[in-house]
């Protein structure tokens, strides 16, 4: 039984590690300026954790193979040095690994969530609701109209509860069901929810952020490639959660300008 266990654990370890190493399932190609830091952090952690994983599982397998079913003729032996080397190993090696990963990781995290967006960032308002995203661009006046929850009405298409009759800033707001952004320009999203919690997740951007009812949350990124990708919801929001998504379309700057022009209500 000890040998069977050892073989099974060794096989499981090598096959699962092999699939990780072969990168059969791996994050999609990165399309943002911030993704590279996350990818590097992921790979470094993969190597560190992978080495410990293989070492621990194989040691377990070897010990089960070697000491399983030993007769009373064999003398009992204590691990050389007792518990002290284990404690030392864990504190020093794991401690060091934690320190290094935290130092690098904190910089990556800060660049995304603790750094203010570039001053020339394009501001886009994002509203999440059961089970869709709505995007809003300021019109030529550069200002967004105020949101009035009591005026929100799906039937008439007033998703944001705008009041163009009394609110001049709201009159030229551009509403879109897809997130259109120009390539290479910093984008500043302001996320707010209409009903329950949602999330904004674009794996290709390596970016994720919850929508919290009652809060307006800023999120910034810069896309590096013209492409069309999916935005999906990762925060359980009700029965249509699995179907809550929108497209992110990254356009060349000139095509984006043209799109913006076409959308302007005249």
């Amino acid at each position: 039984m000890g040998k069977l266990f050892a073989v099974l654990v060794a096989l499981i370890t090598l096959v699962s590690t092999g699939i990780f190493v072969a990168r059969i399932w791996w994050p999609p190609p990165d399309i943002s300026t911030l993704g590279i830091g996350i990818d590097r952090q992921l790979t470094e952690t993969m190597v560190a954790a992978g080495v410990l994983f293989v070492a621990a599982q194989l040691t377990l397998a070897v010990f089960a193979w070697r000491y399983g079913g030993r007769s009373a003729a064999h003398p009992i032996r204590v691990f050389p040095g007792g518990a002290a080397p284990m404690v030392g190993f864990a504190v020093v090696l794991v401690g060091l690994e934690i320190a290094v990963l935290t130092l690098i990781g904190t910089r990556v995290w800060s660049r995304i969530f603790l750094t203010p967006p570039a001053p020339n960032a394009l501001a886009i308002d994002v509203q999440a609701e059961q089970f869709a995203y709505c995007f809003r661009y300021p019109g030529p006046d550069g200002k967004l109209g105020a949101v009035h929850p009591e005026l929100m009405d799906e039937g008439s298409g007033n998703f944001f509860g705008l009041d163009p009759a009394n609110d001049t800033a709201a009159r030229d707001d551009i509403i879109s069901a897809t997130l259109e952004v120009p390539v290479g320009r910093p984008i500043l999203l302001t996320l707010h929810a209409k009903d329950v919690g949602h999330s904004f997740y674009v794996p290709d951007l390596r970016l994720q952020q919850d929508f919290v009812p009652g809060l307006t949350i800023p999120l910034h990124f810069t896309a590096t490639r013209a492409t069309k990708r999916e935005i999906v919801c990762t925060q359980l929001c009700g029965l249509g959660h699995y179907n809550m998504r929108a497209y992110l379309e990254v356009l060349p700057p000139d095509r984006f300008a043209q799109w913006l022009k076409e959308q302007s209500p005249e």
Partner: protein
Amino acid sequence: MSDTAPPPVVRRHALQGRVRPPHPAAPPGFLRRHVFSLDHKVIGRQYLDLALVAVLTGMVLSWLMRFHLAYPEAALPGLGALAPNRAPNGVMTPELYLSLMTMHGTIMVFFVLTTAPFAGFGNFVLPLQVGAEDMAFPRFNMMSFWVTLAAFLVLVAAFFVPEGPPLSGWTAYAPLSAIGKDAGPGQGLGQTLWVCSIALFCVAQLLGSLNFIATTLDCRTRGMSLMRLPQSTWAWFITSVIALIAFSVLLPACILLLLDRVAGTSFFVPGGLVVSDRLQPHTGGSPLLWQHLFWFFGHPEVYIAILPGFGIVSHILPAFARKPLLGPRVVIGCMVAIGFLSYTVWGHHMFLSGMNPVSATLFSVPTLIITIPATIVTLLWIGTLYGSRLRLTTAALFCLGFVSVFVTGGMSGFFLAQPSIDTYLHGTYFVVGHFHFVMGVAAMFGIFAGVYFWFPKMYGRMLDERLGKLHFVLTLVGVYCIFMPMHYLGLAGNVRRYSAFTDDYMKGSLPLHRFITIAALFTGAVQLVFLANLIRSRLRGAKAPDNPWEATTLEWATSSPPPADNFGGHPPVVARGPNEYGVPGPTGDFVMQAAPELGEV
């Protein structure tokens, strides 16, 4: 009074300084003896039976979910009859999927992973291991079981209300869980039943953990110093302290959520929300408050589920390795450290929740630091195997399996503990694979190890070892086939809590989802071997000797099963620690904690 008079023999007890009245004989009558019993052994078995019913329920729910994920359009015969308006023609609707998922998570976390390793085994074994006749408060003990049962029935009742069970997940995030029917099917009465059930469960666990603490501290027999307590008792004791704090936060949180739902308060719901085209009447609450309160309970809950497993493995492994546990005091220290740290890390569930991003880095550090005591304990288990004469019983195999799956689950935790990586992996199947390994499978392996180890003491009969080993091998392979591929899915960006994967980039994951589903059905079927073994052995298993495993601790110093007062009116006197393996003893290579020729006064 002369100085030479021998001191009176007084056992330590909650009523310090007073001699405890003799333990009453087992009460007459079937009901008082087997149903409404005050005996911790009966109550422990009742907890385990409840957990068995719960785990089978939770497993069937997971089969239904897995079937739907692999074959989203296929009809499941019989499902239409069970839930006519939620599974037209037997095809599962998204809301049915989410409610099955909610019930699966809730049943498994509360009624299996808390009930079995902590309340169940703790109840049966802890008083025996400390040499007590019963728990410190037998009536509270009985009450805590019946309240747990009531909580389970209230939860299951949600299946039978018109709109079915809630769909907000086991975490019940507000405002989805707080605004009632408008939020979706099941969010009406179903969600209210859920909140009531969890609140009841909290009450039961508070009573139970107080009882464990009092029993460990005050009901120890003579000579049983704290440092002579077996590792398992230490684990249940530390878990009780964690549970006492964790559930006393979840209970008021549930009450506040209930008030938001039924009394028009706004603890967790801000103003200006428009749900189902209706402006909600709430104002001024905070959804993040629920998340903080929930995870302040929720993360320690992970350790409530897994620390008893630590104790069980640390207790069982030396008995089969036939040598002392390496660094027993270090293991206890690590468990205390993990218990303490478990209260400083809840924010790692909320890196992307919208809380201040600075706090993400603060919560990340203790989360990573917790891997240090966890690594030490794992190394000590592996080090204990070194140079041993390992007896590969089923219980020992499940301990080895525990170490393997715990290592695997711990490694993926290393990724999720870092906010920068969590930005990508949060909300994906990577998380599902992680917590199922470390909290689900590892804790289950601890439970299995406990069952195979203590079954003879509980029922006076041995489990079939051949069936046991078959169960172990197939389960080990099965769980790796289910949960390892989930890490691959998560790496590829596959989002969790979706009832179907039909869109562009996730469609490619369907073959892997099918593989997982087949593995889950297979592994589930393997559990029938376990069930058959339980039933067969309970009725016709070989008679168990008092100490079948040649173990040292007090539960093996009495008959199998023990008499009503545990030690037949002769409370043991303890002369040494629980770790005396591999030494020449009167009956083999071990010396019991209360060896008769040394311990009897």
